[in-house]
């Protein structure tokens, strides 16, 4: 069985900073993978490359058999050819296309649509799955009404799935933080993904909310959706993840089962520093 997502030698540079430095990993359909690493290790940057927001300096990303990032001859880049083409939207895969292929994501700092209601936030994410013509919308044809009804029903299904039980007509800014996180996951699910990228979904949640989140992620996996999550909460990662990729300074320092990663000396060093810091405690 081939991998759902295949990242090969991904490199991303911002001027002098190398945010991601030769990252390679695979995600198989329906698994839960965690990406961990100290602050600034390049986790979010890697996500942004994978989901098509950043154009990596080198490497390839293949999702579900389709190339999101292709390996380009270096001379092309040197000549600025790639940049020129890309500024016209050519020779690059835009994030919305990636989403349509079945990869959804959330953001590290909540990015809901602030002037839309909870329900609208989720129906907006149904964009690609919805058939509504221009004239049908203007004339409110029966087909349009049906599509809208189906869309709302589906969105409610997702809100319900993530355990959102508050008033769906509220604006998202009226919700407490934990609920907003939940809506963001519902919104990502509404794009009907095969792979869900979660960027620090547990950040800022309290104990109970974290427990609920863990169950939700398992439930999502239960639908057959693969989940890749970036997370700092080790408890949550160790309990949830089937496999862990560890980054430090953009480099991949470990990739394996939670137990192995936990004992890996390189990982311990990255997190705790070298031996002196051990002594200091």
């Amino acid at each position: 069985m081939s991998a759902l997502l295949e990242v090969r030698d991904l490199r991303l540079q911002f001027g002098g900073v190398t945010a991601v430095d030769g990252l390679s990993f695979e995600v198989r359909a329906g698994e839960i993978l965690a990406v961990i690493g100290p602050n600034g290790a390049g986790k979010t940057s890697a996500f942004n490359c994978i989901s098509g927001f950043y154009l990596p300096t080198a490497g390839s990303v293949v999702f579900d058999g389709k190339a999101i990032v292709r390996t380009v001859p270096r001379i092309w880049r040197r000549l600025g050819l790639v940049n020129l083409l890309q500024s016209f939207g050519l020779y690059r895969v835009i994030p919305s296309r990636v989403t349509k292929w079945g990869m959804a994501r959330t953001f590290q700092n909540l990015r809901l649509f602030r002037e839309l209601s909870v329900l609208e936030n989720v129906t907006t994410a149904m964009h690609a799955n919805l058939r509504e013509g221009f004239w049908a919308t203007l004339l409110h044809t029966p087909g349009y009404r049906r599509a809208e009804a189906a869309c709302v029903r589906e969105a409610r299904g997702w809100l319900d799935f993530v355990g959102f039980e508050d008033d769906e007509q509220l604006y998202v800014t009226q919700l407490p933080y934990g609920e907003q996180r939940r809506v963001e996951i519902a919104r990502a699910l509404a794009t009907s993904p095969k792979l869900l990228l979660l960027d620090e979904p547990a950040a800022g949640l309290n104990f109970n909310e974290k427990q609920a989140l863990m169950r939700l992620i398992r439930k999502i996996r239960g639908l057959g959706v693969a989940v890749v999550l970036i997370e700092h909460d080790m408890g949550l990662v160790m309990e949830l993840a089937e496999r862990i990729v560890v980054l430090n300074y953009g480099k991949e320092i470990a990739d394996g089962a939670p137990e192995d990663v936990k004992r890996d000396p390189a990982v311990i060093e990255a997190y705790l520093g070298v031996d002196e810091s051990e002594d200091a405690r």
Partner: protein
Amino acid sequence: MMQLIWNGLIVGSFYALVALGYSMVYGIIKLLNFAHGDIYMLGAFVGFFTLSAFGISNETSIPLLLVVLLLSMVTTGLIGVGIERIAYRPLRRSPRLAVLITAIGVSFTLEYGVRQIFGPNPEAFPIRLESSGFDVLGMRVTASQIVLVVIAAVLMLVLAHIVERTRQGRAMRAIALDPTGAQLMGVNVDRVIAMVFFIGSALAGAAGVMAGAYYGSIDFLMGFIIGLKAFTAAVIGGIGNLYGAMLGGVLLGMLESFGSAWFGGEWRDVFAFGFLILFLTLKPTGLLGARVVERM
């Protein structure tokens, strides 16, 4: 041919002075200050007002011009700081659209405020530089033109010195790169932004006075087109980049001068804006701008 280049250089130095303010403000707080062209207009009117108040008219003295220039620069600089304080600072965390709209409002307020005070008709600027000239290299050059170019060049050199060599300049560059980071490092962001507005507005005010003395007449809408042109210049050079703004200003001045010669003066503005659109399409980072990945 040489004449076209020389004419382009004169107009270009006005553009460059205004473009610098545009570019500095954009570089530091990512705001397109639409009111910037109107600061140029204000500069001209401040000069006009002070000179008229002293009953001066039809003067040709260059020292007097310099005095008025300095006075206008200080006044417009302070006005720029005031505008930032009142209209832009409270919106620094707001959506971009809100700030842009506010800038339009400020621009309108300045234009029509001046119109209410000085009336809608053009006024004759009290200092008029003599137009006796001489021929060099096949182009006709007047003394006043040389004075203007020299003033513009001096102002730009002073600015370059401030940005490159002083503490404040370093703070400016730091904020442009990373506002939060700069703040964490102890840079007083508010003060530096105010200073950028002061310098940018002062340069625009200087250009206004110079334009008044050069063209001889001023009106309340004179800042509108030049604001657009200065933006074009800033984009051509690479917005946010000071040398880019200078280069872009001079380049745009030349382009226009050649464009008018080839297509006719009435198409000059169309030519310039067409160039803006072309540039934004093909090379949005401008000639000297760096390609940056926007932080998500």
